[in-house]
């Protein structure tokens, strides 16, 4: 006779109605990542549906509930301030056990000697798993096309510098160039609703609100909190929300909803020495804007050689629902907005 300890470990902590289990199995969805909305958190079939539609926004599913961990491990991690997503689980199906947390506490994740990592197999963290799955899903289901244009930044930079002192005085906020991008993008989306849309079966669903996400890079991965209804918010509100969201993103304190609500993504590498780059769509969104560093370009003004500040913008779109001409017009329109900031941002 088998001893009880020899019985295969069963993952009893996932509660889901049978229809949800069947659906998850059929669609290859890991139930441990799905948040249940039924009584006592039981997973309903509609939660699977919701997960499928919105998993796009959850670039990093940072919410601790979704991380497989024993309750002892959770408690200990909280007490010691160890982010669970950085802990490697050794339990069944990668479940994080108390011992794993103790190990993580004892051995802080300082990249020790280099030789230790080469030739090693590194298990993925929960966050990395989610990113891997979602990026592969996006790359293999949405045919991407890419567009680039050069945006003159002189006026925009000048506009921002002129605003800065006023803004600091009035709102005690330091407005960032990203806030201007967010607002301009949201306004441009109003003109091109298909950039706020997603593929749903054989239909195109145009999402009701324009919620612009800003990719935030962290050591463990990328996360995209979104500013809701950015087209309708004033710059001070955008600046306020952006700084709060980015701040909390870095601390892993975002709410799932703040990630899930995104309908378009901006990813900026302006601080790196990168001229331009392409991005994989954040599923199920149909557009992602990339921003490279600002460079000096020589140009002629009359007979004089002048220096212009130019940044190269890129746009990746889901070609299933966005055609080249639409994407080009979008970028063109965005460029016009950014190059004429007073027209764009004043009287809003």
């Amino acid at each position, binding site marked *: 006779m088998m001893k009880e300890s020899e019985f295969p470990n069963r993952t009893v902590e996932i509660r889901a*109605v*049978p*229809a*949800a289990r*069947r659906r998850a199995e059929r669609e290859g969805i890991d139930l441990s990542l799905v948040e249940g909305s*039924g*009584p006592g958190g*039981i997973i309903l*079939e509609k939660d699977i549906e919701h997960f499928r539609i919105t998993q796009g926004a959850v670039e990093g599913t940072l919410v601790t509930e979704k991380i497989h961990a024993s309750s002892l491990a959770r408690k200990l991690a909280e007490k010691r301030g160890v982010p669970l997503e950085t802990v490697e689980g050794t339990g069944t199906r990668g479940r994080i056990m108390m011992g794993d947390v103790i190990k993580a506490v004892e051995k802080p994740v300082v990249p020790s000697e280099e030789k230790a990592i080469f030739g090693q197999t590194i298990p993925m963290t929960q966050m990395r798993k989610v990113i891997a799955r979602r990026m592969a899903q996006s790359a293999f289901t949405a045919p991407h096309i890419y567009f680039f244009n050069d945006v003159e930044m002189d006026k925009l930079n000048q506009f921002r510098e002129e605003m800065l002192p006023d803004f600091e005085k009035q709102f005690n906020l330091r407005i960032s160039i990203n806030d201007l991008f967010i607002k301009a993008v949201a306004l441009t989306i109003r003109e091109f609703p298909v950039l706020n849309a997603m593929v749903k079966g054989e239909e195109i669903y145009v999402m009701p609100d324009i919620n612009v996400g800003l990719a935030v890079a962290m050591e463990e991965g990328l996360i995209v909190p979104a500013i809701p209804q950015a087209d309708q918010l004033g710059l001070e509100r955008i600046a306020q929300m952006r700084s709060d969201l980015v701040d909390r993103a870095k601390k892993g304190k975002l709410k799932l909803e703040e990630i899930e609500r995104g309908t378009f993504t901006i990813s900026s590498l302006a601080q790196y020495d990168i001229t331009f780059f392409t991005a994989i769509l954040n599923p199920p969104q149909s557009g992602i804007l990339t921003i490279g560093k600002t460079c000096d370009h020589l140009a002629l003004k009359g007979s004089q050689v002048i220096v212009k500040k130019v940044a190269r913008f890129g746009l990746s779109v889901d070609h299933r629902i966005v055609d080249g001409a639409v994407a080009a017009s979008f970028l063109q329109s965005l460029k016009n907005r950014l190059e004429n900031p007073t027209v764009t941002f004043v009287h809003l």
Partner: protein
Amino acid sequence: MREITYAQAINEALIQNLEKDERVFLMGEDIGRYGGIFQVTAGLLDKFGPERIIDTPISESGFVGAAIGAAMTGMRPVVEIMFIDFTTCAMDMIVNQMAKIHYMFGGRGKVPMVLRINIGAGRGAAAQHSQSFHAFFMHIPGLIVVTPSTPYDAKGLMNTAILDENPVIFVEHKKLYATKGPVPEEYYTIPFGKADIKRPGRDITIVATHAMVGRSLNVCEEFSKEGIEIEVVDPRTLQPLDKESILESVKKTGRLIVADEGPVTCGVSSEISALVAEEAIEYLQAPILRVGSPYTPVPFSPPLEKIYIPDEEDVKETVNKMKDYL
């Protein structure tokens, strides 16, 4: 269409069968001069005489046994037992004779009879005259169990019951006798084993019997205003049971409530729940819930009896519980 009561509908079916088939006769306690405890056989004695409308002594075992013998020799008896509670006095006749003869004689004998009984609490008749243990007959192979919920169904099913070559337990409901509904004057039959969708819906299936059908229908409109569409499926016969219609409805809605007035313990609702759990569990969006009587004798005290009876409030409460899974 004209409307008559459930009791009148059965009365009319009996008249039409007595008129058209001379093998049909009635037996039971006080069914003649008194017209039956619930007046289902009212007026029949005058119309058809004491040869065909027979008042019996108080001996359920005796007159059920006599009817079985008559049926075996070619008659079509329709027997009334005043309350389902009294079938216990005739259990040997019902379970060991009526249900078994066709089988034990290798098909060379048959018992084409109808045993009319009634269930339901709510008349202050206490623990021995108010029970709803019709599930017991569903448990016995060899019996057909009929459970009409409307006057229309009562007449059509009674006509089918008298035609059928097998013993039929015809389970009426006390609280339904006075309810009215449209019933055609002409003779018609309703096939056994064919459920009736009393109300179409898409969110929740309520499989309901007897008075629970009306009680369920009464709360449907209220939930409809909230955008919840309940489908009410009335099996009409428990044996044979229309599995297909029940499963089809549950596959559509993903949520099942079974409402039957019997105690839920080993009840009609247990059987239907098990059926769905066995054959359609992967479609379920919520746990199966049951509405029925509590596991206790029917109380005599009117306030307690009111609490005992599964009513609209109980159905509502159960739907509300299920709402969390919508």
